[in-house]
């Protein structure tokens, strides 16, 4: 057995030895998509240092430069690689600023729903009984209400409660809450199902026989064991959250145009589609698709790798 090999492997060597690493190395899609994602994350979060223009600085804007097509076309200008929009803002910079907003909203929403969903699912699965029934009923109901509708409702309610001036400021938080609240049932269901499996394993019984408290059993023993499926759902959920954010912004109920996200940009550009200024909507849309596609590719690879039942 492995005991013959007495050399203790350090964690990096162990990781290199693992199936996950092996499957990552063997999967070009996983490598390419994670490189793309790294680039996007880097450029979006350090956008100030990456882009030559600050599209939100009115001083640097010139309406003369509005509707400049991409640089490789006839009327293009070298300093605006992807052209400019109706206010003369550089598209590339605007997109990166927009993607930062989209990523912040997406990540925050998914972390919010992950924490909410996992804690509800974990406790429901562990304690069972009436509490579990109520939680699961709630997720069923929530699950049948499509996320986009849920987010619209939350937004509608928020608009009713918060005054219009406040709303623009609060919009981003409302949006995070709205998307987060619509995604948690996935996490609750997955973590409950996984908890039910883990709960019946003997190591949990062994811990209770030793006298370990319920709280410690749940968070020290069960939680690390259910994280794999949760992370897979989380990755795919991130793509969904980013899409949901841009959809809401596209519908005009998301972030306000003053701090545009990718969805807002597409909506603003959509008005110019028929007059021939295709780049204003096309580039943010393509960027959004590449972002979501890369995340999904990575999530898909993770699901296949981490799910032993579906191994080819």
């Amino acid at each position: 057995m492995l005991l013959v090999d007495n050399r203790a492997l350090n964690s990096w060597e162990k990781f290199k030895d693992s199936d996950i690493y092996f499957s990552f190395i063997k999967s070009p899609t996983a490598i390419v998509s994670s490189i793309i994602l790294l680039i996007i994350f880097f450029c979006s979060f350090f956008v100030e240092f990456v882009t030559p223009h600050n599209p939100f600085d009115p001083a640097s804007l010139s309406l003369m430069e509005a509707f400049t097509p991409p640089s490789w076309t006839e009327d293009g200008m070298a300093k605006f690689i992807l052209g400019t929009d109706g206010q003369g803002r550089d598209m590339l910079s605007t997109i990166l600023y927009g993607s930062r907003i989209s990523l912040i909203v997406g990540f925050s929403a998914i972390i919010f729903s992950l924490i909410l969903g996992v804690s509800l699912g974990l406790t429901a699965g562990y304690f069972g009984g009436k509490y579990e029934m109520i939680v699961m009923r709630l997720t069923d109901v929530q699950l049948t209400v499509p996320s986009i509708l849920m987010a619209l409702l939350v937004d509608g309610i928020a608009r009713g409660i918060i005054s219009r001036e406040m709303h623009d400021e609060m919009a981003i938080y409302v949006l995070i809450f709205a998307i987060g609240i619509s995604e948690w049932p996935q996490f609750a269901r997955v973590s409950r199902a996984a908890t039910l499996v883990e709960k019946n394993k003997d190591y949990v019984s062994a811990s209770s026989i030793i006298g370990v408290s319920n709280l410690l059993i749940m968070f020290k023993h069960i939680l690390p064991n259910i994280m794999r499926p949760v992370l897979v759902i989380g990755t795919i959920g991130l793509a969904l959250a980013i899409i949901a954010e841009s959809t809401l912004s596209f519908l005009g109920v998301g972030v306000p145009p003053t701090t545009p996200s990718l969805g807002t940009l597409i909506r603003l550009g959509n008005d110019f589609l028929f007059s021939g200024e295709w780049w204003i909507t096309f580039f943010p849309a393509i960027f959004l698709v590449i972002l979501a596609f890369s995340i999904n590719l990575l999530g898909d690879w993770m699901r296949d790798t981490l799910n032993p039942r579906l191994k080819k």
Partner: protein
Amino acid sequence: MTFLKISNLSVDYKMRKETVNAAKNINIDIKKGEIVGLVGESGSGKSTVANAIVNLIDEPGKVSSGSILMGETNISENPETIVQYRGKKIGLIFQDPQTSLNPILTIGEQLIETIQTHLNLSSEDAKNKAINLLKEVGIKDAEKRFYNYPHQFSGGMRQRVVISLALCCEPELLIADEPTTALDVSIQSQILELIKRLTKERNLAVILITHDMGVIAETTDRVAVMKNGDLVEIGLTKQILVEPKEKYTKSLVSSVPPTNKKISRFTIIEKENVNKNNNIKILNRWSKKIIVDQNLIEIKNLSKSFDDSFFTENTKNSVMAVDDVSLNIKEGQSFGLVGESGSGKTTIAKMVVNLFKPSSGDIYFDSVNITKINKNKDLLKFRKQIQMIFQDPFSSLNGRLKVKEIIAEPIRLHNPDIKSGDLDSYIHDLLESVELTQQSAIRYPHEFSGGQRQRISIARALATQPRLLVCDEPTSALDVSIQAQILNLLKDLQEQLNLTILFISHDLPVVRQMCEKIAVLKDGKLCEVSETEELFKNPKHNYTKELLKLMPKIESIYN
């Protein structure tokens, strides 16, 4: 006259790091009308051989060489041939009848489809044939049952349906892969009888794959012993079991708990762990209790019902898992609790260790009623003294923690002031007491084999220095040679640490070797409690008599 001739069969699994030779140059001949057993421990390649015959090896396995002749035809040459032979000339039976049948088709539909695939019969004729077949395998009311779905049959009945499906086109070869492993002893003997009868009546050639030497002894004419993909030896069953030539076969036979006598220790020929250390290291830490002649555990009128009205509409159907059971366990005794699945033996264990509260009745530990303790603090005092070892070594250890952390948890919990140096040396002592190296401490459970994991489990249980050790089928998931080692270890520990053991098992020979006193359970009710030798020699209750009669006996080969 040889009917099936397997020559030089090799099967390779190409894995990422190495190629595993699941079967290496296997040669087996089988005649009509004989049952050939294929025996071996897990990973020996016995199922691989069976699957290779019908070309149903899972990816990434491949037959790399060899030929399989059936009559005059080489069936391994052309994949098309074997597809036609499946079901028609070769019938297969798998281990688990629960999952072998398609849940959404009636058994009739499945039978008729199989029959019409191979035989040119009208639907009416196929149906008649199917019903006759169901009758033949012992299904009552076959005309009515024909229209039932698999979930309407019990496990044993389902396996009969599976057999009827395997035989419905009158194959000449039957391959049974662990056909009774998922079944209780009483059902097992019925299914084995059925296979024996059909072999004679239909002049079948049968390959019976099993890990159970008792089944081999009682059922097969010849036996092939396999280990790590090699055919160790093949011969008449009696010859192999009584006078094994190879060392491996000898160790295998000697590891099997005898059913007819009690032995003090199992002779271990091949060891999993080399460093043997009879001196149990934790002894000097152990506050050893002197055994007094008193009952450590008293169970009085214990009942437990699982009220499943919460999940189904059927409110009347609350299942009595344990029904009015009373028994006493003396300090220092090892007490056996025996029964088939659903007899309530595990439920009793879980009530003793306080995982479930009983519906009614009391459990006294050292004269204190532990079922009435509600405060966690008070309970902790008893938790320390009662520990448990579980059946499945793969689920009883948290895979995310190192062995060190797993064993440290109970120590820290019950002795929060322990210094870290002392803790480490305590953990090392515990590991050595269960015959594991100190280096094991920094590893994760998945780096260990089943037997080694079970040792870690034992070390964890001993960490709180318990007086009572509840062992719930501690060896039933292990290979027989590993089982022997673990049973030896438990015996040693008990002797040196003055432990009281509640040993739960479905395996009568094992219980005979381990226990001084035995209680037999059936459907939650206690049948009888006797001293072990008394129970085996003069069983009083009818159920006990039946169990003893039906259990497969390796000694039957002498008769």
